[in-house]
């Protein structure tokens, strides 16, 4: 298993797409946190003690999509470039291959979320300071924010990885990742109304406190449990298919 983990780690950091995505996220976080939320801060936000906390959750909700994209590429590159045949013939168990990817992407997602979640308030504070403005004393509920952000970042990343495992085609998986959370669940919300919060990505948004178009909301813990249910179901299907399907 260790050799699979090391190999997946190397796969992740020996393709340029991983670095491009990290660079894009860094630029986005800097732009929005430093310039929009910091330099051009609204006067009402300067008086809000939760400005930085909102900035953290806001940043994490955006950067997690990119973390999911990294996971998606880790899987779909294997099929697009047929390296999956080396991966599968190097391991004596397909399960080890799938779970190695899950473990490595879990680590990546947690570090990615922590780093950019921490950089966001830092950049915002720098932007405000550079503009010679002052924020009121900020309150950050660290325990609450950290677990919700980490769960959101990890959850989105796992969703990307499992979508990739199920779809396998790179373009198809990317389209699915970007269409399901917004368009598909948005359309379903017209039908489900209050129950929209029980849809996978809507429940994930609830964890981090992102509003969905409904008046009904779940607590972060309940929303996390709902999302885990979907994740487990998707994992079981992806796992069975990974074992049973032809390599590519």
């Amino acid at each position, binding site marked *: 298993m260790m*050799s*699979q983990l*090391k*190999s997946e780690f*190397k*796969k992740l950091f*020996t*393709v*340029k*797409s991983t670095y491009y995505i990290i660079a894009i996220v860094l630029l986005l976080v800097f732009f929005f946190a430093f310039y929009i939320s910091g330099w051009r801060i609204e006067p009402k936000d300067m008086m809000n003690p939760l400005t930085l906390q909102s900035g953290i959750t806001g940043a994490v909700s955006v950067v997690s999509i990119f973390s999911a994209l990294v996971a998606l590429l880790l899987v779909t*590159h294997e099929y697009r*470039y*047929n*390296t999956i*045949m*080396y*991966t*599968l*013939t*190097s*391991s*004596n*168990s397909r399960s080890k291959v799938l779970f190695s990817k899950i473990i490595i992407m879990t680590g990546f997602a947690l570090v990615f979320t922590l780093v950019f979640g921490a950089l966001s308030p830092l950049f915002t504070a720098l932007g405000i300071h550079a503009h010679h403005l002052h924020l009121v004393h900020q309150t950050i509920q660290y325990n609450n924010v950290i677990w919700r952000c980490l769960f959101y970042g990890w959850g989105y990343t796992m969703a990307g990885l499992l979508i990739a495992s199920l779809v396998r085609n790179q373009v198809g998986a990317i389209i699915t990742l970007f269409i399901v959370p917004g368009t598909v669940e948005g359309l379903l919300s017209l039908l489900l109304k209050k129950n929209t919060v029980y849809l996978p990505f809507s429940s994930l948004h609830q964890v981090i406190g992102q509003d969905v178009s409904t008046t009904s909301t779940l607590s972060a813990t309940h929303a996390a449990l709902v999302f885990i249910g979907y994740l487990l179901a998707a994992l079981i299907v992806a796992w069975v298919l990974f074992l*049973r*399907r*032809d*390599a*590519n």
Partner: protein
Amino acid sequence: MSHNGPNMIKSSHLSKHYRKTLAVNDISFDVENNKVTGFLGPNGAGKSTTMRLMLGLDNGGGTTTFNGKKLQEYAHPSTEVGILLEAKAFHPTRTPRNHLKILATEGGVPMSRVDEALDIVGLKDVAKKKPGDFSLGMSQRLGIAGAILSKPKCLLLDEPANGLDPEGIVWLRNFLKNYADEGNAVFVSSHLLSEMSLMADNVIVIGKGKLIASTSIKKLIAGNAKSSVFVRSTGLSKLEGILKTKSLAFEKADGGIEISGADTDEIGRLAFSAGIPILELANRNASLEDVFLELTENSEEFQAHDQKGKK
């Protein structure tokens, strides 16, 4: 071909369905150690599918053991079997060195072996270049480097000579023969029949998913092709008369006659005893290509036709 050496590949009852199509139909064969075994068949015969079944990449019927064990029973299967199933199976922006480092990590192979393998296949100078721009020949070399990285006891190569220049083909032939001579089993598919006849000791022929032949190249040619003797002479009509009395079949060809069922010694003696001057006397042995075409005549999935609609 029932040799049970310590290093050998043994495939039993391989089969694979694609919906209603039977791509591989109950194929069993052995690949011996110390030998290069060629894997031949027309397009669509099921060669690649068979190789994928052997490696467990495709789900289907049958089993394959490598030196007595299934691939999944090895802690590091890639140290037992090196594969090249597709030339361009690498990420286009991941350098050859990094590509091999990943394979080495997966196979528990020392990293020092990466540069050795690149050196062997002649890619050391481009080890840090993006392989996306590699020619087919260079891609094949990278694939071969991946296959031999862990010095496996068995090699499975699908069309490794495709895209190689003449020098590369000679290098590959010598390399694979030497690799087999070191006690390893080399299983290689190719459409280059002339190359296969130079490289392979044994040959497995399939057509439409069925096993057609599994034997040595010498036996295959001897057993399946019609050898003949070609004679050019100023006394052909006299010779033809003698052949008729001996009940030897012949036909006119290339300004002489081609005689079946006799050898040069026999024809030479007959002509000499009858005082017939011989200008040319030669054996015309069938090539692997002749035998292959004969064996797979009715097994071609995709047959080309000439402009008049004939095969």
